[in-house]
């Protein structure tokens, strides 16, 4: 079982493909910044802008009856004290009408309790044991955002420092290029997801970016190590040695990615809904990360 990836032949294709992906990501980020209602590079979720998110199940005998969100909102408006805020409510039924999912601007605990009581009156009975409610003040949101951005920058800096100390300049530069390539593409995908499906990113998204950073660099380090080792011992030419090293570590890199993807896939399929987008972001990062470690980073090392 020998692998034979024709890296030298396909260098141009690989680099064009990556450039295409990066441009597509940048396009998503730009579009999201200028052409959406939220005017941000990515659709920031409740963690970062504050708000109230409530999920609660209805108690139904067999099947839950079909209700239109608009009529429920209309009823809510009639009995709520603050008429304005109803306009900003987003209400959805999921899970065969059983699960009610609501997003509103920030509410106090008291207001949120009132909202639930009102809901109970309109479409009750509700199962309070199944309640999942999050209230985040706008101030805290801003703070979380700064926190996340700082952690990202600090750890990118730490990783860059580590790579520069460990490798010489050229290797370090390309390893970091591959890293930023991975992060940018995952970020871009979520920008597009925000534009198309209004997917929001929360603090767990920042966590996934950080984890991807650690993982992606790790992958690249293993391949670059192999290249350095082979360049010292092998007789073949520079480009051929690189290609050989990539093929030698191909199995290892794909296998590790697969064994990391399998548990993530289990979380996506079986895990709690709050971990869905997080696991998806991680999976995408690992796929893009393996691609860039195997194909992109070594291609950049090739001489013309």
């Amino acid at each position: 079982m020998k692998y034979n990836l024709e890296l030298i032949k396909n260098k141009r294709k690989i680099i064009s493909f990556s450039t295409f992906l990066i441009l597509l990501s940048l396009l998503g980020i730009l579009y999201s910044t200028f052409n959406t209602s939220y005017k941000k590079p990515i659709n920031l979720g409740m963690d970062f802008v504050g708000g109230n998110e409530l999920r609660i199940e209805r108690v139904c005998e067999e099947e839950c009856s079909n209700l239109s969100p608009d009529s429920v909102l209309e009823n809510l408006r009639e009995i709520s004290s603050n008429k304005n805020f109803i306009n900003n409510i987003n209400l959805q039924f999921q899970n065969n009408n059983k699960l009610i999912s609501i997003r509103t601007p920030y509410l106090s605990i008291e207001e949120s309790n009132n909202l639930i009581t009102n809901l109970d009156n309109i479409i009750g009975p509700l199962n309070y044991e199944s309640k999942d409610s999050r209230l985040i003040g706008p101030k805290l949101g801003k703070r979380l955002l700064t926190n996340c951005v700082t952690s990202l920058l600090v750890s990118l800096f730490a990783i860059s420092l580590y790579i520069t100390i460990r490798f010489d300049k050229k290797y370090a530069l390309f390893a970091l290029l591959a890293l930023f390539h991975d992060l940018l593409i995952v970020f871009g995908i979520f920008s597009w997801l925000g534009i198309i499906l209004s997917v929001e990113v929360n603090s767990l998204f920042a966590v996934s970016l950080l984890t991807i950073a650690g993982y992606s660099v790790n992958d690249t380090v293993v391949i670059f190590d192999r290249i350095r080792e082979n360049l010292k011992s092998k007789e073949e030419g520079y480009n051929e040695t690189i290609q050989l090293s990539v093929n030698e570590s191909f199995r290892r890199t794909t296998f590790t990615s697969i064994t990391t993807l399998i548990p993530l896939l289990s979380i996506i399929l079986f895990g709690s809904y709050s971990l869905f987008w997080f696991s998806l972001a991680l999976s995408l990062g690992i796929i893009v990360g393996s691609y860039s470690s195997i194909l992109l980073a070594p291609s950049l090392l090739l001489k013309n």
Partner: protein
Amino acid sequence: MKRRQGWLFFIIFLLTLSVYLLINYPLQLGLDLQGGSQLTLQIIKEEGKVTRDELEAVNSVIDKRVNNLGVSESNLQTLGGDQLILELPGEQNPLVASRVLGKTALLEFRTQKEGTSKDLKNLQLQRLSIKELIEQYSFAEKSQNDDNFLKAIQDDLKDIEQELNYSSTSNDLYGKLIEIKRYVDKEITNLFIKTDLSGKDLINAGRRQEQTNSNWEVLLTFSNSGGEKFAEITKSIAGTNQLLAIILDGESISEASVGNQFASTGITGGSATISGNFSAENARELEVQLKGGSLPLPIEIVETNTIGALLGSKNILKSLYAAISGLIFVGIFMIFNYRILGFVSVLSLLLYGFFNLALYSLIPVTLTLPGISGLILSIGMAVDANILIFERIREELYDGNTLTRSIDSGFQRANSSIVDGHITTLLSCFVLFLLGTNFVKGFAATLGIGVLISLFTSLNCSKTILRFFTTYQSLRQKNLYLPNNNFSN
């Protein structure tokens, strides 16, 4: 060989210890797994940073209040330099806690300025009207009354504004009502002069039902010096038409005259009652706040998470499914590709799982959803090291080396790149743990612990188990280690 056997016993010892730990010290589950509420309290300071002393002072006041509330098994901890996190497990409504904790509860005793009786009477009248309007408003809301009713409230409000010579700036009616009430409260407070008696002079607070009606009153007990101050103050205004006001957080909750009979000694005995039409609930809240003392800095509740108990147990089940199916599929993948080596990695993965959980109960790490995802993710990363080693072993076998030699040099050569490769992940975990929120910390902790343990299990445990297997002649055939037999010798 002897040394390896020593390792084998050591590993078995660790496994037994882990199982013992897990049985005797059950894992601590976070609120997203057991249900409950979590409140994040932000200390508000206009200028400068919150100092360590201030943080501790706020912490102790909040702690006292929580205890006095009688919330069971609550947990209060500081986060960062200026936040507190309060966890209330189970089905406890965070509403009462939020009402009691959110108030500064700054208690002041003030005496009326001379010659302000007329102003005060007028303001008290306005206060009564505005309170009535607020009540009418909330009644109107509940009964879905027609707009005429609201219009009437609006008109009354205008009259009050004219009387006060103040116009409100809020957008909606309710906001206006509250704004005017605050304004009246402030104006009333301004008619009184501060004294040196305050909430600090209290040693206890209590409540009781008034004898004449169903309202409640709150009893204050002063310290010795507080009692003296109170006597002094009451003496100074006894028999005059100046009133004594008890002011809580800038709002006068009681204004009372002191009778002429106290003119010589003041009110002695070191206690006072506040009777301001309290309901049982309000009286209890005030009692708890006064007992805990006033907060040195105001706080704001910036985040509340509530998870129902049923949802919590569902989350546990889901996580369990995810973890087990992840383990099984990783196991199948490894055995399919690496035969006996794969089986060895499955065994060391199981050890890995036990050691991780045992460490969680030992440290202890509170298990949350992100924490579990960190653990599940680290399964994949733990196998990473095994794959690196096994690939090296395979290469050595293809090169025609003997099994023992291949295994030895496989472990040896993969050693450095494994240690190396884990460093970047650990770096990320470290940063996450330092800067992250509570939620994020759980993930960073389990992933970080996982990466560290995997160094031990994948390097040491795998090697020991593999050595143990190869002591059996029947397990020493090369084709048990390579799925494809297309190699010579």
